[in-house]
């Protein structure tokens, strides 16, 4: 990697003042250092934000949780309230990476991680995200790429596994910048490549995710993930589901897909199909069919369409029954 200066930020203010498009925030490092080693990024400075006081705690907040951006995935998994009240989040985090990666990676880092598209990460291929003219993935090996929003300039999948769960819980992201702090809805936080191909979210170079605000859960929830390997693998498709139940009927349903689009992908048609229905194998299967509607797979990833249906059906049933399916 190219050499860089190192700034150890003691406060949010110091971090924001130091950060720019040439001075990037460093949290867990599992994502960023690999990009530096591959010369995909070559910043002049790294700003270590892990020492900022107040960003490494999980607190009760308006009946829900306020999670500091520097809380590691292991700490979230060990937290009784995350496990007990937010099963979709707990299940989404449970098998991310490896024990070492979960000890290092932070929640803020998971939301802001750069894509693992192998063309983005290999400097000799054309990539619009790196300022190139074309996208090598569209004509190339794209079995792990998007099946939704594939008509945009980039067909990456968003790497965040926490994202879909946070979407179904209606979380907010607290962003600190030079003008102070603001809250963004989690769905507004992630942006499609068509909006700005070089980035994946609304953050400006001198803005920082400081907290994730989780409202109190409103019913039952679960996440189901399909992947090749039991450990150290990325999801091929995943679905997070939150259901507000009245007896066996779903009064409200929120369904969000992961690993199939450049952002956590809300499945509105599936939600509408499930709303007001008794949740069982049949209705869950019907909603799952709707979830895959609108998919435009690439040359190598038609298989993901069925994985979406499977993930959605199993996540709905897991949420309703409270059992892993």
């Amino acid at each position, binding site marked *: 990697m190219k050499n860089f*200066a190192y700034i150890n930020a003691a406060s949010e203010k110091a971090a924001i003042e130091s950060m720019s498009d040439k001075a990037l925030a460093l949290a867990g490092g*599992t994502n960023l250092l690999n990009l530096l080693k591959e010369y995909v990024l070559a910043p002049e400075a790294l700003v270590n934000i892990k020492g900022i006081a107040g960003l490494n705690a999980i607190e009760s907040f308006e009946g829900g949780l306020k999670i500091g951006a520097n809380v590691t995935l292991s700490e979230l998994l060990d937290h009784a309230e995350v496990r007990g009240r937010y099963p979709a989040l707990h299940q989404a985090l449970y098998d991310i990476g*490896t024990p070492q*990666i979960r000890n290092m990676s932070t929640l803020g880092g998971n939301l802001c991680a750069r894509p693992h598209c192998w063309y983005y990460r290999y400097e000799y291929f054309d990539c619009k995200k790196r300022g190139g003219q074309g996208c090598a993935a569209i004509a190339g090996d794209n079995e792990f790429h998007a099946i939704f929003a594939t008509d945009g300039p980039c067909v990456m999948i968003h790497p965040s596994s926490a994202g879909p769960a946070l979407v179904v819980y209606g979380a907010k992201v607290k962003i600190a910048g030079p003008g102070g702090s603001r809250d963004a809805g989690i769905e507004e936080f992630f942006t499609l490549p068509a909006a700005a191909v070089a980035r994946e979210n609304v953050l400006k170079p001198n803005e920082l995710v400081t907290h994730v605000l989780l409202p109190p859960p409103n019913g039952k929830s679960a996440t189901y993930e399909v992947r090749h390997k039991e450990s150290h693998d990325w999801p091929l498709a995943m679905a997070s589901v939150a259901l507000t139940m009245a007896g066996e009927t779903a009064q409200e349903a929120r369904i969000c897909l992961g690993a199939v689009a450049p952002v956590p992908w809300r499945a509105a048609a599936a939600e509408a199909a499930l709303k007001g229905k008794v949740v069982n194998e049949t209705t869950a299967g019907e909603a799952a069919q709707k979830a895959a509607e609108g998919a435009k797979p690439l040359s190598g990833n038609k298989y993901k369409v069925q994985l979406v249906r499977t993930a959605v059906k199993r996540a709905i049933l897991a949420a309703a029954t409270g059992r892993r399916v």
Partner: protein
Amino acid sequence: MSEESKKPPAPSSASPEASGRFSRRWFLQGVALSAGTAVLPGEGLLGGSAFAAPQAPARIGPEPVQIALSVNGKDYQVKVEPRVTLLNALRNYLNLGTNTPIDLTGTKRVCDRGSCGSCTVILDGKTVYSCSVLAVECQGKKITTVEGVAEGNQPHPIQQAFVECDGLMCGFCTPGFIVSSKALLDRNPHPTPTEIRRALNGNICRCGTYNRVFQAVELASIRMKVKGG
């Protein structure tokens, strides 16, 4: 890669004779040094730069900076560029330029991308990939490498169990497995087979000796229980 090739040669005062220790690594470095001395620029000898007291300024680098690392209970002086990873610092930079340089090469560099687990160390009680942590981030933190697992000259029960169960073939992944196993047993002295597999799934063994590794952890756990662990 580039950081390794930039490493200054060991100063002559750091010869095995002077430091009272001898290893294959120092022998090979000594051969390389004597063969290359004629063409080496003098600045490679570090010019006796005095170590300033470590400060924590707002912005350090990109030139090498002086830091202290606490590894296996000992403090070491390290002068590194900010880009040097903890893995690289352990293997190549500890006390470099002083009279007591030391290479802790038990921590292995394999993938250098946070994927294989051979560089696993315990940082403030948690296992991490040392290839994906910057050395400058580790000031004031407690680092345990595989060299710090044994209790004096007595192998840790997990090390003894690896020997007895043949928990290795080529052995290159073994230091990482030992460190991950120790961290598991520290936290959970009597893990179930499922817990063992889950705790070790950040370490890869290309020889495929996983079953023997899992047996070794179970054996160590039983022995520690018998000893009242």
